[in-house]
């Protein structure tokens, strides 16, 4: 958290009139100003910084990919109720966006990612994973097909060096466009209604993972029916300059439907309930894992990883074909701890022996229980698992061993996520 960056100093920032539709956002807010030395600000702000600052009651910020985003804007409980009951809007601009274009963009991507892309239509997206030659995961993300020869890969971390290296021999252009595209995440059962209310026609016909070009308040945006909440949701990709106006328009039109702004803590909680791992948190990119044991295979992270082992040649293919026949050493599982109060969870034990580690944990309001994503040795998955929990009581901290069980399904997985037409209204 960096409260000192909550209100950027300087005349340019304060000169932005939020009520002026023609107002331009200082591009330096999002992209590092080349004249400014890197140490001057250790975190940058997103194009939505001023609007989210205005919404913030807590002034709690968190650092994400070198940018500040709100951690909690009002109250996590309120934000959660909006997410599951109506809709929320959040700033996800710090995601890394890479544009891949060129005559051989398809061939290149087919080599790069583990799954088969031949069925990927223009204006649709798929979840992709990509591995190094040893079959260890480098990252995962959403791949959009924007045109016949144009794609956009959205990831949690940057993979530019590896993508550029893999592009050798392909007539393809790979560029980091992160700082030119802002992203607003609109999630929740009423998210389609909010978009319709804001003037986006025909949104309900958009299928899950599909995308379309539209306008809100005269500002062009690319809307995809994506998100990591286990429910209906959309992600709005706009020019950095337009983003604050899209945000305000949506908040105005969605207010009557119960649309609320939300922060990063809710994003984490929603993805935990949906059982989705995040790079850098639940797994480390094989290029960042100092201990080789920290690098994971897709079979350890996902029960049905998006890969096509029958594809002739792709990065990590040979290793993945071998690994596909083996039992993964560890598995990422969703655990439910039998305890009523929120507690911090750390080590997974089986018969007194440490067999894994909790990577993300939180209190799930949907289940009314502590849940956690944890990497656990496969050999122990059948056993009686418990997890160490720490609870502060006054000045003392109490360690307890909580029994846990593995959840067979995510804590939240609504049929609305894929329903066509998307429900307008509850």
């Amino acid at each position, binding site marked *: 958290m960096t409260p000192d960056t909550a209100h950027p100093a300087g005349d340019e920032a304060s000169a932005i009139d939020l009520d002026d539709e023609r107002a331009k956002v200082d591009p330096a807010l999002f992209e*590092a100003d080349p004249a400014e030395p890197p*140490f001057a600000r250790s975190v940058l702000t997103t194009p939505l910084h001023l609007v989210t600052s205005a919404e913030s009651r807590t002034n709690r910020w968190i650092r994400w990919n070198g940018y500040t985003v709100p951690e909690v804007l009002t109250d996590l409980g309120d934000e959660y109720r909006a997410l599951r009951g109506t809709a929320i809007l959040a700033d996800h601009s710090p995601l890394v966006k890479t544009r891949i274009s060129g005559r051989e963009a398809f061939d290149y991507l087919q080599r790069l990612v583990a799954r088969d892309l031949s069925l990927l239509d223009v204006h649709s997206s798929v979840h992709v994973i990509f591995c190094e030659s040893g079959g260890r995961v480098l990252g995962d993300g959403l791949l959009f097909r924007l045109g016949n020869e144009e794609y956009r890969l959205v990831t949690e971390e940057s993979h*530019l060096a590896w993508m550029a290296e893999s592009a050798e021999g392909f007539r393809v252009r790979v560029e*980091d466009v992160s700082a030119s595209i802002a992203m607003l995440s609109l999630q929740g059962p009423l998210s389609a209604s909010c978009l319709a209310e804001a003037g986006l026609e025909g949104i309900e016909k958009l299928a899950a993972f599909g995308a379309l070009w539209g306008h809100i308040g005269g500002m062009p945006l690319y809307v995809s029916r994506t998100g990591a909440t286990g429910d209906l949701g959309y992600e709005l990709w706009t020019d950095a300059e337009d983003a604050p106006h899209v945000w305000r328009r949506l908040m105005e039109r969605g207010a009557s439907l119960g649309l609320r702004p939300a922060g990063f803590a809710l994003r984490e909680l929603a993805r935990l309930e949906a059982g989705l791992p995040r790079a850098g948190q639940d797994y480390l990119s094989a*290029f960042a894992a100092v201990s080789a044991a920290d690098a994971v295979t897709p079979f350890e992270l996902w029960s049905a990883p998006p890969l096509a082992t029958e594809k002739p040649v792709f990065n990590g293919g040979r290793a993945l074909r071998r690994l596909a026949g083996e039992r993964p050493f560890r598995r990422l599982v969703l655990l439910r701890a039998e305890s009523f109060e929120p507690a911090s969870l750390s080590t997974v034990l089986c018969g007194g022996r440490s067999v894994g580690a909790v990577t993300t944990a939180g209190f799930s309001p949907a289940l009314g229980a502590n849940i956690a994503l944890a990497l656990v040795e496969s050999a122990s998955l059948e056993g009686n698992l418990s997890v160490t929990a720490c609870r502060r009581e006054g000045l003392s901290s109490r360690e307890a061993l909580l029994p846990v069980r593995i959840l067979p399904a995510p804590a939240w997985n609504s049929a609305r996520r894929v329903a066509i037409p998307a429900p307008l209204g509850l």
Partner: protein
Amino acid sequence: MERHDAIVIGAGLNGLVAAAYLAQAGLDVLVLDRGTAPGGLASEHEIAPGYRLPRFTLGSGGLPPRIVSDLGLADHGLRFIRAEGGVTCFPDGRYHASYRDGVVYRREISRFSRVDADAFTRYRRDMLRAVRRLAPLLARPAHSGARGLFGRLRAQLAHADLIAAMSPDDMRDVLRLWTLPASDFLDTYFEDDFVKAHLAAAAMIGGTLGPCTPTSAARLVLPWLAETGDASGGAPETLMPAGGTSALVQALVSAVGAAGGVLRMEAEVTDVRIRDGKVKGIVLANGEEIEARAVLSGLDVKRSFLSLFQWKDLPEGLVERVGRVRMKGVAAKVNLALDAAPVFPGLPEGCPSIGGGLRLAGTIPAMERAFADWRERMPPRDPLIDVLIPSLLDPSLAPEGGHVLSALVHYVPEELHDGPWTGERRDALGDLVMTRLAEISPGIAEHVIAIEILLPDDVENEIGLTSGDLSHGETTLDQFFANRPFPGAGGAETPLKNFYLCSPSAHPGPLVMGGAGANAASTLLAAMGKRGRA
């Protein structure tokens, strides 16, 4: 006759570390030094009244946390300043700074290449992996000190385990790192010449290899040795003792004294006494004899064997083997006192990385040419200059407003191809350094109130370090680990019973500050059957 459990020759950093460990283990320790003040290579002096800087070294670097806590040095006032990793200044006016914060450093590399900014993640991973492999080997004696057939066998098997635990990928990484030139190694990660030069410049310092010389890639790990690999994702930091190297020396002296050790200055050891093939004590220049159960030498390997003993007393072949150890002077030291803070118009104002040092370097081919000059014993034309202005972060080192500047000039030969260094040549070197400094800090010459230039020869003459080799022997693989100082005598133990080497001529060399002293103490205590903390 005066008698002690152990005598340490030389009150340098490693001698004092060894003495402190031994004294804390309950031994009666006497430290002898021919100088007037302790510190040896780490000693400081006043170049002008109130301006203090380390005379022979840059003065950066920290003792490993293990030694600091073992010896309780924090209680003796030792503190370290953690600074950013420093800035490389290129001849065309460009600069590249290190930052510990991964996000900030990523942006710094992005000024040169976005792809490289991303590639740094993998480079950092591989450096930290190398450190994790290296750290256990550096933290303990190269030889376990095990005696007897079974003890040695067990030690060998433990070593074999380390190797057996390596995967083929690990093996390939190790091989790559220990055989490749730094330039080729960096090419497998980065595309930008300035990014590569920045990483190479920090690593080549102090070594006798150029960046394009095979095996120099191993040096790239050096700046990372103290890194623990936290999640910050940035560049390694620079450590320096608060209060200068004299504060570090004082903390050690105080720790030795507190544990009952005795330090005697102006006591030059001229001879080590051998009886029945065992070392029994020493003789001082004034003829005084002192007996001891063990003698530890903090002098370099050549000086230890070739000047402290009658050669006829030494075991067969030892003189020859010691003679073959390569020790080469590679750096000159230029010390400046400045009456005002130097300004760097080419660097952004307030750049925090300046406190961690400035490196005046060209790109990798230019560094290699500087190295070639050294090999051909040419007076340096375009040397690699490593500058530290410790008073920027530690104002106690200079009077108010003043600053001290240390410059280590690399690839300076001990002797020139056409004869020894003359006064003229020495002045020319000083002028060259001032010219290079003025390129990044115009007008710096007007603020110089004192300057001194120390060539490798001066270092040898003043403190007796053979060839002025600050590394106490080349740190190439053939003179490292169990081969340091020479094959068959790896570690602190020597072919002479009761005589130990506690200088960086022994494992782990200059790579771990105080490591050689700690190893010597631990080897001696193991031989004595004492359970010291070392």
